[in-house]
């Protein structure tokens, strides 16, 4: 019972929130102090990075342990609170107003769990550089990518206004997907998003483009949970305004 009271307590929520803020604030500074440690944090999924660096060099990553523990406690607290309150709500008068905070809790849990899925089962393949007309393997996916055509529109001042790449994805010798990739418009295939990151000219004068291929298996669920959270949050505002008017 003492453990359950702890897990459902608003004070636990407060302490977890405070711990997250402190750990995050420390981490934002530590990241700048150890660029050699944290620079490649986004070049692979979090679980892989943490398994290599978090355990090998624990001192500068202590804040991450705190951040993860606080997030976990925050999530468990939200889950237990919602379970306890929903039982009470469904035993009494059920109103949308009473349910909405718990819809937000559940959506928050959805985001945390989906992010966990992406952090463990996702994939990051950075820096796939291909000259126009050339091929390159897309990491260990078994896919190969051909850059069919690269186009860039440059402003007179020298910065790019628009750039796009027409690419074809092959599995073995069969073309399985073809499309145009530009900023804000990736090409999706087999759960991977192909993103154009950079471009330039090879020493022999042909244009080349650099791509990232990322897989986030939790992304769709995160989007759905985030939208659910936002909808419940916005709905929660209206009764509040009427009540306070």
């Amino acid at each position, binding site marked *: 019972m003492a453990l359950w009271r702890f897990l459902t307590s*608003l*004070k636990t*929520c*407060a302490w*977890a*929130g*405070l711990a*997250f*803020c402190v750990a*995050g*604030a420390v*981490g*934002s*500074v530590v*990241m*700048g102090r150890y660029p050699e440690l*944290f620079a490649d*944090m*986004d070049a692979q999924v979090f679980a892989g990075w943490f398994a290599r660096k978090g355990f090998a060099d624990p001192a500068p990553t202590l804040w991450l342990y705190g951040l993860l523990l606080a997030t976990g406690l*925050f999530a468990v607290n939200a889950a237990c609170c919602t379970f306890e309150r929903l039982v009470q709500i469904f035993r009494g008068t059920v109103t949308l107003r009473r349910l909405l905070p718990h819809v937000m809790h559940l959506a928050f849990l959805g985001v945390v769990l989906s*992010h966990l899925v992406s952090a463990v089962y996702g994939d990051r393949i950075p820096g796939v550089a291909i000259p126009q007309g050339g091929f390159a393997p897309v990491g260990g996916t078994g896919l190969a990518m051909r850059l069919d055509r690269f186009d860039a529109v440059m*402003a007179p*001042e020298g*910065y*790019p*206004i*628009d*750039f796009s790449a027409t690419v074809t994805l092959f599995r073995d010798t069969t073309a399985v997907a073809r499309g145009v990739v*530009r*900023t*804000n*418009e*990736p090409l999706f295939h087999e759960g991977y*998003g192909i*993103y154009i*990151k950079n471009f330039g000219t090879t020493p022999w004068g042909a244009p080349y483009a650099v791509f*990232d291929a*990322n897989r*986030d298996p939790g*992304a769709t669920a*995160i*989007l759905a949970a*985030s*939208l659910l*959270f*936002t909808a419940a*949050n*916005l709905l*929660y*505002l209206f009764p*509040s*305004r009427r009540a*306070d008017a």
Partner: protein
Amino acid sequence: MEGAHLIPFWLALAAYGAEAGFRLAGVAPSSVRKSPLFAGVLLHAAFLGLRWGLSGHAPMAGLFESLTVFSFCCAVAGLVLCRSEETAAAWKPLSILVLLPQAGAALIDKRMTPPYPALDTPWFATHVGLSFLGYGFFAAGLALGIVYLRVGGDAVYRAAGRSALYGFSAFSAGMVCGGIWAYYAWGSYWIWTPKEIWSVIVWIYFATLAHLKFIPAQDGWPGWTKRLEMGATAAGYGVVLLTFLGVSLLLRSSHSF
């Protein structure tokens, strides 16, 4: 036209300056709609609309545009929350919070940011706009929190509570839009940079604050009371400033100016 579009910016700055001057001198307009600040907000909206049309993207890129949008959102949040006679006292600190970022913007380079490809998406305007709207409500929370701590009042307490709730809601929606934008533009809804971490700190801070309201005052330490809650609401603005300016200016981040 590029230079002329700054005229409403300067006029808005003058209006905000007049509002702050009047408030500090103890002169209050008969109603918010007859205040210099209200005129300033209209001029400011005209300026932002003109700049949007001229630059081809939402005027929220770079330090100048960020500061002036921040000022605009503080003013709008104040107009939403501080309309009653009881909450009017909050205009004294709030008019300064509106003026300072606009004055800061006046001091720096006002050239338009080029229309970089990544900005060519509606998620840019929604992400940044909603985030700054959240910041504006948090600024109003600071002003209302100060007034509550000094003179109290149920209407001020409720308005301060709404500032945290509205700010949290706008900021949350802004984070969602930012995640969607980042996913399509850079291949991940989340990257590990100080700005992203501090954005979540702001979110967690105000989420926690929203929960603390429900801890009974007699329920042992920390003895959560209205005064402590108002203090934390006001202090939240410090967390916002650290996130917006501190991290963007001092630490390396995808959001650095």
